[in-house]
């Protein structure tokens, strides 16, 4: 999850990877043994609930609306997308 989030914040991720993040987070929440594990994806869920548009901006528009994330150049994103699988 950290890796996927990291890629999103750097503007390297695709929409597929966001779906991947959501499914992974659900799986971790539902199958973890202890409360810490079950709660660990909560930040992902809550940010997705309230700021999905910002996620999408990182992915689709290659910008960070809050101006926090340092985005990799677009070419890097394209190259990373090709190399991701």
């Amino acid at each position, binding site marked *: 999850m950290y890796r996927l989030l990291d890629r999103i914040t750097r503007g390297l991720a695709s929409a597929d990877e966001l779906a991947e993040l959501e499914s992974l987070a659900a799986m971790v929440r*539902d*199958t973890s*043994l202890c409360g810490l594990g079950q709660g660990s994806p909560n930040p992902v869920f809550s940010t997705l609930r309230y700021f999905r548009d910002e996620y999408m901006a990182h992915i689709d528009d290659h910008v960070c609306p809050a101006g926090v994330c340092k985005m990799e150049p677009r070419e890097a994103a394209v190259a990373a997308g090709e190399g991701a699988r």
Partner: protein
Amino acid sequence: MSVLTLTIEGRDVAGQTGGTILQVARENGIAIPTLCHLQGLSDVGACRLCVVEVEGQRKLLPACVTAIDEGMKVTVNSERLTAYRRRIVELLFTERNHVCSVCVADRNCELQDLAVELGLTHFDLPLLSPQASVDATHERFGIDHNRCVLCTRCVRVCDEIEGAHTWDVMGRGTEARLITDMGIPWGDSNTCTSCGKCVQVCPTGALFEKGRSVAEARRRRPYLPYLVAHEGRTR
């Protein structure tokens, strides 16, 4: 001790008070995949493969450590459960370096079998490819951390059956490693009795007998008659 009735996969079944969902399901021929469970050892619910849906429960429950209850309605197989189980096995594969083609346990491996059963044909997640080591300091056995899934069967068999408690787990998350004694090389361990039970219970090729080549692991489980890995599976 009284008898409780419940339904698993829509079938009416019965079990003793204190029995687990896994026990009752298997007594009734209903398969639930497991990895860390080994009958005869205590259950720790660590691998999460046996999670099932219980009606009225929001959370998924591990069948190996969930006691049955009167009127319980249990779903063992659903699309969601299968997808989660597949993802769990995928995570196990991608966390370390599992290369079946050169593994001593090839074609004799519970992780490999699970991947086949669950239809894991490829990885969506990136491989972490850690630099894990092999400890071959023991005279007869070795441990390849690349192939360890941290099921802790070895830890439990060593503690509960052999009474040596040579094995334990150190570290957290992806850093977790099996250790012998206080993290010294296996060959230097004072507590290890070289009984080999840990090698026999290992579901993968992580623990192996030295001198065996690819696909030559032999689990002589009858050697441990009080342990049964999976009903219907002879290993």
